[in-house]
């Protein structure tokens, strides 16, 4: 018999078996007389252990322990009393710090936005003045490059800060997606702008035979097991 099988006797006697295991064990005992004798003999010995005495601890020992428990409970209460205000102060301080840091961040952010807007204004002012006499097509492409490069490096150096009376009306702006708008530059040149639009529209052609095919797979593919 294996050691684990031997241990089954103990598991059976100590009621540490599943009902199904118990049933199997009982069947095994019915078939094997030696096993039955072994289990019954162990049961008898185990029964004798019920006579093992229980000893009470001396009262002075239990009293000393209970006193110690009371003392510790008092300590814990004191600790909680001192800890709670300290915790409250810590939370308040953290909140105050967070609010002031947030405020400072917003203030600095606002300052930066203002300075960037000012820089953008000066940048856009300088370019139309230089290109007014040039061809409109050149203006539109060239200015886009120059002004975008100027905005890309927001630290603009050697830029003319003085604005001419002609451009003082212009109020350029930068949207958050870095898209530059030039319509302000043409506000005083409506005729030229209209010509550009007309030319561009004329260039547009209708597509007669679209060659581009849409290769997207529109069907839904189901996945999963067949069960």
């Amino acid at each position, binding site marked *: 018999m294996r*050691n*684990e099988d*031997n*241990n089954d*006797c*103990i*598991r059976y006697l*100590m009621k*540490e078996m599943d009902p199904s295991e118990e049933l199997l064990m009982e069947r095994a005992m019915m078939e094997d007389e030696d096993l039955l004798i072994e289990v019954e*003999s*162990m049961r*008898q*010995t*185990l029964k*004798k*252990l019920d*006579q*093992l*005495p*229980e*000893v*009470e*601890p*001396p009262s002075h*020992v*239990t009293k*000393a*322990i*209970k006193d*110690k*428990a*009371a003392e*510790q*409970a*008092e300590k*814990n*209460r004191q600790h909680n009393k001192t800890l709670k205000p300290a915790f409250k102060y810590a939370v308040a301080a953290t909140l105050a710090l967070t609010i002031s840091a947030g405020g400072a961040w917003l203030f600095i952010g606002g300052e930066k936005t203002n300075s960037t807007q000012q820089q953008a204004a000066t940048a856009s002012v300088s370019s139309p003045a230089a290109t007014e006499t040039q061809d409109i097509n050149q203006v539109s492409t060239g200015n886009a490059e120059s002004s975008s490069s100027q905005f890309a490096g927001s630290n603009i150096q050697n830029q003319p800060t003085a604005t001419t009376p002609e451009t003082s009306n212009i109020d350029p702006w930068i949207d958050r997606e870095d898209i530059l708008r030039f319509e302000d530059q043409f506000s005083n040149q409506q005729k030229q702008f209209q010509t550009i639009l007309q030319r561009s529209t004329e260039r547009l052609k209708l597509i007669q035979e679209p060659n581009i095919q849409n290769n997207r797979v529109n069907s839904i593919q189901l996945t999963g097991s067949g069960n």
Partner: protein
Amino acid sequence: MKLEQSKHISRKYQQLDDKDLVRFYRQNGDEQAFSELMNRHQTKIYSYIYSMVKDGGKADDIFQETFTKVITKMDDTYNEQGKWIAWVMRIAHNATIDYLRKQKRFVDVSSNYDKESNTDFYDRLPDEDLVSAQEQLEKDEAKSSLMRHIDELPEEQRQVVMLRHYYEMPFKEIAELTDVSINTALGRMRYALINLRKLFDKEKEQEENSYAERG
């Protein structure tokens, strides 16, 4: 009136389970909750310690050390998911084993005599008034012979027997507590029972022989 009130309070605590009592003590510093916990388990814990060290004074020290650790470490190390008593028993068991190792001696198997307090194991037992003197004597003799035989068991086997008897501890927990596999713990119990049976048989044989010699 006050007495009735205190009785009512103590009855309320008696109805609570260990987990709630522990929570009351931890969160509110409720001394009565701790007292109730102690009342429930002190006898078994003390009996286990005493049966292992066989010395009243030392058992008192270990018992006190155990509960001092319980009181001071309950906030830090006790996890409420586990059984409180299993945690306390682990502390008691470790303290007992530490003591036995420090002493570098195993319990004297020939006697239950407590040298320090000049008492025997059974001198500490409570009186049972209802049992007649003769019955008491027979019972004491049986207990005495049982304890003598248990003392003769190897320490590992004795530990398993005691943990199982006093705490009805599942073998899984006994295995965890004694750092062995479940099969080893079960095996130790089985060998303990086999050895005890042999010792009882031997004792019976000796008694029969002595009767025969007298006759």
